[in-house]
């Protein structure tokens, strides 16, 4: 999967690229409008991560260009402006998602994954992690072909972990993913613990391994 990251802050690009390359994405970087335009004309990408405010132009114009060329390309807008206007404008013009700075890299990765999933028209694309299989359309989870019942939060949590497998995922990023960023309660970490506990129990009950590891003081890691 090829991703183009358009962002004028070189350090932020580096972070995003490092994280995503670890997930076997191929990342290309553009730090200005001109560069981005050049790359977009010459190459094809599956996903474009687009900053709206660029030193020499507006990301909105790039967005139009991308969608004119190939409507299937997924566009994730990254913006410092958390304004509804920008958001609506971006989404109206065909952007697939919108994320506000500062964001968690795990969240970015999860968004890109779900964006890529939505690109597949047939929807037959299953998310598979060893014996765990997830059908993102019906939101059904099976372990060794046995259907297990998950609550909405447990399902989201599992999906988030699998998207960020082998990565340390902080409690803060999980809390934001599950409850949205308006939640500013320290208590939320206890609920993660509760939901996670339930999820682990259910997975174990159906005979799968416990893939969730607690990284002391940091968060969790979903790995073999």
């Amino acid at each position, binding site marked *: 999967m090829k991703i183009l990251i358009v962002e004028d802050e070189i350090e932020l690009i580096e972070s995003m690229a490092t994280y995503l390359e670890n997930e076997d994405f191929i990342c290309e970087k553009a730090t200005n409008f001109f560069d981005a335009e050049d790359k977009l004309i010459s190459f094809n990408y599956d996903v474009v991560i687009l900053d709206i405010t660029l030193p020499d132009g507006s990301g909105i114009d790039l967005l139009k260009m991308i969608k004119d060329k190939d409507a299937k390309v997924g566009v994730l807008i990254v913006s*410092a402006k958390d304004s509804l206007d920008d958001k609506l404008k971006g989404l109206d013009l065909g952007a697939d998602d919108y994320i506000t700075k*500062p964001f968690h890299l795990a969240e970015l990765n999860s968004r890109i994954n779900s964006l890529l999933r939505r690109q597949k028209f047939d929807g037959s694309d299953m998310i598979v992690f060893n014996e765990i299989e997830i059908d993102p359309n019906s939101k059904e989870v099976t372990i060794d072909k046995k259907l297990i019942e998950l609550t909405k939060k447990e399902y989201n949590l599992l999906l988030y972990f699998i998207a960020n497998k082998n*990565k340390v995922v902080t409690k803060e990023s999980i809390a934001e993913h599950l409850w949205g*960023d308006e939640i500013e309660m320290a208590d939320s970490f206890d609920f993660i613990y509760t939901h996670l506990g339930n999820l682990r129990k259910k997975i174990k009950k159906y005979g799968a391994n416990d893939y969730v590891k607690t990284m002391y003081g*940091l968060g969790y890691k979903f790995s073999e």
Partner: protein
Amino acid sequence: MKLIERTGRSYLILSLVIFVLFGIVLYFILTAVMDNRLDEKLRYNKEVISKRIKYETPLTIFEEPEELTSSENLLYPKDTIVYKDTLIFHAIEDVEGIENTEEYEKYRQLTAYETFPSGKRYKIITRNSLVRNQDFVTIITLLTIFITLLLVAGLWFFNTKTANKIWKPFYNNLNSLKNFSIQDQKPIELQSSNIDEFTELNGSIKSLTEKLSSDYNNLKEFTENASHEMQTPLAIMQSKIELLLQSTNLNSSEIKQLRSIYQAGQRLSKLNKTLLTLAKVENRQFSEIEEVNLSELITNKIEIYEDFIEAKKLELEIEIEPDIILETNSTMVDMLVTNLISNAIRHNIDKGSIFIKLSAVHFQISNSGNELTISPENLFNRFKKASSSADSSGLGLAIVKKICEINEWKIDYTFLDEQHQIIVRF
């Protein structure tokens, strides 16, 4: 004291003084002029008499002339004329004899000691009543007083009238200045006047308020821009730490420190986001009005917070009338409801209670909790928080209040029977 009254009073006092002085001077001049004329007349009469004596014409209505006594001769050895005012007693018998009038009347009297060619010396006295003159002076004095009063009253009347007309724009402008609010974003409207001073004043007020407004806007924009500018460095910081966390060879002390940095960064991000939200609400960037189903919105929010309510074992009581629709901005209402519900949970006690009620005219949220450690008036101010907990920015209620202000809703806080209660009236 009003300026009009102050100046009016000065004019009044000045004109009174002038008129009193004028009256006095007029009185003396008039008296002198009339005395002069009377004296002339008396002299004329005396001349007639002395001529008659000289040519020995009989003085029909007069007594026979008497020569001067020796003492008078001594007193006035030369020919002398003496004028004086004198009172003479009158007893006038009424024609019908019913009433007698007795009075002293004032007379002007001329006494002449004169030597005639025959060598005899005589004293000639002629008199004229001053009564008519006195009447004349009285009338003139009264007229003067009357004119003075009329003039003063007229002056006062016109002065007040024109002053009111002249000052009207001033008072109107004073009123609009009093009602001027920097947050309204409306330029001040001033009534123009053809008085130079007022025009100048208006000009100064206009430029002052414009300056104020632009400074205020700059300040507001500054908050917003500063918050925006902070987003990117914060994003870099956060992403770098998250990458660092992925490395496998960290020891526990390093992890601990990284964790602290990460958490501080998170707090900073949250604070920054909230500040930005507040700035945006204040800058009225949420201006799109639509129909918002408040009943649905609140029900959904409660669902999101379910975990938090359960964890604290809070007893939740809800009375929500279905399909309450408000014409407002959905983002702002969302923020309002989120802030109030999360506050009610966060500042609650274990096994406490929450009561949420929504009707067409108000939204009420009550929760059990400890009494505030700050005064209720400060509750809605920025960075005033009752707890020092790190997860509370102290901006939530400031945002809530601002949203209420913009929507012209009334918000009230009360603490009764261990219950915090906030009511928003639409």
